[in-house]
C-alpha cells in the first residue's frame, strides 16, 4: 500500500459541511448582488477587473461611497465565493469516491468563473442584457451548490431504508418538477424586469394602473411616463415592460396553485423529510408573494426588492432538493444494500478490498 495515497470515499462529513457553508455563502452573494441592481449601481465602477484603476483588492475603503460601495463589495464577495468554490472542487477531486460528483465540482468551478466573466463583461461592454444572464446563472449556481451539499450528505450516501415509494411521493415529484420549471421561468421574468432599469412598470397592486388589465396603447404609456416623478435615473416605461410585469403576476399565481397542490397531496401522505420540505416550500412561496406585493407598495425599496430576489432563489433551490430527494427514493436506491466487495479507490490508484 502506498503510504502517501489518500483514500477516496463518499462519506466526507467535513466536505459536506463545507458544501453547506458554500451554499449559505452563495445565498449571501445573491443578496449582495441583488442590492447592486436594486440600487442601480451596476455601472458605478466603470472598469473591470480593476476598480477605478486600482487592483480591486487594494481599492481604498474611503472611496467605497454611494453606488461604488454596493458594486465593489459585490465583486469582493464574489471573489471570496469563487475561492471557496475552488476549495470545494479540489476537495471533491481529492476525496470524493463518486466520479460524477467530482466532475460536478469541476463544473461548479467553471460556472463560478463564467459568472465572474459575465459580470465583468456586463460592465465593460455596457450591456444590460448580459446582466439578465448573470442573474439567471447566479440562481442556477445556487441550486447546483445546494445539490452538491445534498449529494455529499449522509442522507444521500447512507440510505434511509424506512422511506418507501408511494404514489403520493411520485405525484409530489412530478408537481415539484413542474413547480421548479415555473419558478425558474419566474426568476427569468424577474431578472428581465430588473435589468430594464425602468423602476416599477406598474406602480400599484393588486390593480394595474387602477384596472384589472392596464392600458398599453402608446398614449397611455406616454401618460404613465409623464405622471411618474422619478427620484433616481430610470429608463422610460414601455408597453413590453408592462406586459412582462403582468406575466410575472400571472406566473406567481400559477406557482401558488402548483405549490398548493403539491402541499395538499404530500403533507398527509409522505414521510417526514419530504413533509418538512413541503412546509418550507409553501412558506417560502407565501413569503415571496408578500415580498412581491411589498416591492410594489414600497415603490421598489431596495431592501425589499433584494429580499424578493433571495427568497426566489431559496424557493427554486427548495424545489430542486425536493425533486432530487424524491427521485432518489422513487428509484429505490436508498433501500438498496451496500455491495460486499466495494472497490476502495485511492487517489491515483484503484485497489480491490477482499470481503
Amino acid at each position, binding site marked *: 500500500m502506498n503510504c502517501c495515497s489518500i483514500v477516496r470515499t463518499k462519506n466526507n462529513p467535513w466536505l459536506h459541511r463545507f458544501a453547506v457553508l458554500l451554499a449559505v455563502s452563495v445565498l449571501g452573494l445573491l443578496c449582495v448582488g441583488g442590492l447592486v441592481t436594486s440600487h442601480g449601481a451596476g455601472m458605478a465602477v*466603470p472598469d473591470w477587473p480593476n476598480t*477605478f484603476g486600482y487592483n480591486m483588492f487594494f481599492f481604498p475603503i474611503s*472611496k467605497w461611497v454611494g453606488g461604488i460601495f454596493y458594486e465593489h463589495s459585490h465583486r469582493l464577495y464574489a471573489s471570496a465565493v469563487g475561492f471557496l468554490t475552488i476549495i470545494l472542487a479540489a476537495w471533491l477531486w481529492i476525496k470524493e469516491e463518486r466520479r460524477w460528483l467530482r466532475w460536478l465540482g469541476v463544473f461548479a468551478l467553471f460556472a463560478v468563473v463564467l459568472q465572474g466573466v459575465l459580470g465583468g463583461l456586463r460592465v465593460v461592454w*455596457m450591456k444590460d442584457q448580459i446582466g439578465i444572464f448573470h442573474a439567471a446563472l447566479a440562481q442556477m449556481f445556487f441550486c447546483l451548490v445546494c445539490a452538491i451539499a445534498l449529494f455529499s450528505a449522509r442522507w444521500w450516501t447512507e440510505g434511509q431504508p424506512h422511506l418507501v415509494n408511494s404514489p403520493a411521493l411520485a405525484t409530489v415529484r412530478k408537481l415539484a418538477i413542474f413547480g421548479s420549471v415555473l419558478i425558474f421561468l419566474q426568476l427569468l421574468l424577474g431578472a428581465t424586469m430588473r435589468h430594464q432599469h425602468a423602476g416599477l412598470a406598474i406602480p400599484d397592486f393588486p390593480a394595474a394602473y387602477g384596472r384589472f388589465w392596464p392600458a398599453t396603447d402608446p398614449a397611455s404609456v406616454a401618460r404613465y411616463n*409623464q405622471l411618474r416623478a422619478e427620484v433616481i*435615473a430610470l429608463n422610460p416605461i414601455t408597453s413590453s415592460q408592462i406586459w412582462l410585469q403582468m406575466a410575472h403576476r400571472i406566473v406567481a399565481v400559477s406557482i401558488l396553485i402548483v405549490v398548493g397542490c403539491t402541499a395538499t397531496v404530500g403533507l398527509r401522505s409522505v414521510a417526514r423529510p419530504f413533509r418538512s420540505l413541503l412546509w418550507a416550500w409553501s412558506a417560502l412561496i407565501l413569503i415571496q408573494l408578500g415580498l412581491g406585493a411589498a416591492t410594489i407598495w414600497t415603490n421598489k425599496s431596495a431592501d425589499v426588492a433584494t429580499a424578493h430576489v433571495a427568497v426566489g432563489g431559496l424557493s427554486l433551490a427548495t424545489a430542486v432538493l425536493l425533486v432530487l430527494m424524491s427521485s432518489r427514493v422513487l428509484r429505490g436506491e436508498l433501500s438498496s444494500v451496500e455491495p460486499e466487495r466495494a472497490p476502495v479507490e485511492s487517489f491515483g490508484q484503484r485497489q480491490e478490498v477482499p470481503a
Partner: protein
Amino acid sequence: MKSYITGLSVAILAGSLQVGSAAEISGKVTLKGDPKPEVPIDLGPMCGPLHPGGEKVTTRHFVVGPDHGLANVFVYIKEGAKKGGEPAEQPLLDQKGCLYEPYVLGAMTGKPVKIRNSDPLMHNVHATPKNNPEFNFAQALQGQVNEKAFTTPEVLVRMKCDVHPWMFAYIGVCDHPYYAVTGKDGSFKIPNVPAGNYTIEAFHLKAGAKAEKLTLSDSDKKTLNFELNAP
C-alpha cells in the same frame, strides 16, 4: 493704398450685412395646469454637506416660474435647418453639489461637450443614448474636465451618475447650432438663424412637445410662444 481701403471697406460692409441679415427666434414656453409637486432628494451624508444651511434639494421635473414660465424646455429647429455651423459657445455640463448643472443642455454633433466635476467627490459620467454610442467614465478629482462629442442628433440624451443615483441630466443633440433651453422664466432665444422655412419644436420631458412652422426672412425677429400642458 486707396484700392486697399476701398476693398477693406467693402468687405466690412458685406460682413456686417451678413450678420445683420441673420434672423432671431425668441419666445416663451408656459405650462398650463398644475404639475405634481417635486420630490425631495435625500443626498446622504457625503453629498448633504455640499448644500449648507439646510437647503432642500428636490427633483426638477417641472421648474415653473411665477407666471407659469416653464424652465428646461429644449427648443430647437426640428426641420429645415442645414447641417453644420458652429455653436455660440462650448456647452459645459458641471457636477456641483452632487447635481448636474444645468439639468438640460444643448450640443451639436461632432462638437465636444465639456464635462466637469466641481465636487470634492468621485462621480461617474454615464451617457445612455439611443442613437449614439454609450459611454461611462469616472471623474475622481475635483476640477477634472473631460470632453465628449456625440455623432448623431438625438433629443434628449440622458446623462447619469451611478455613484449617486439621483444625479441625472439631459443633453439635446442637433446637427446644427439653432437650439436653446428655456430659463427659469420660460424664455428662450435662438440667434443668427438664416432665412428659411422651419419647424420649431419645444420639447419637455414630462409636458411633452409642441411644434410650430415658421418662415424667416433676413433680419427677422420673430416671437414664438408655446403652451404645454401639465399631465
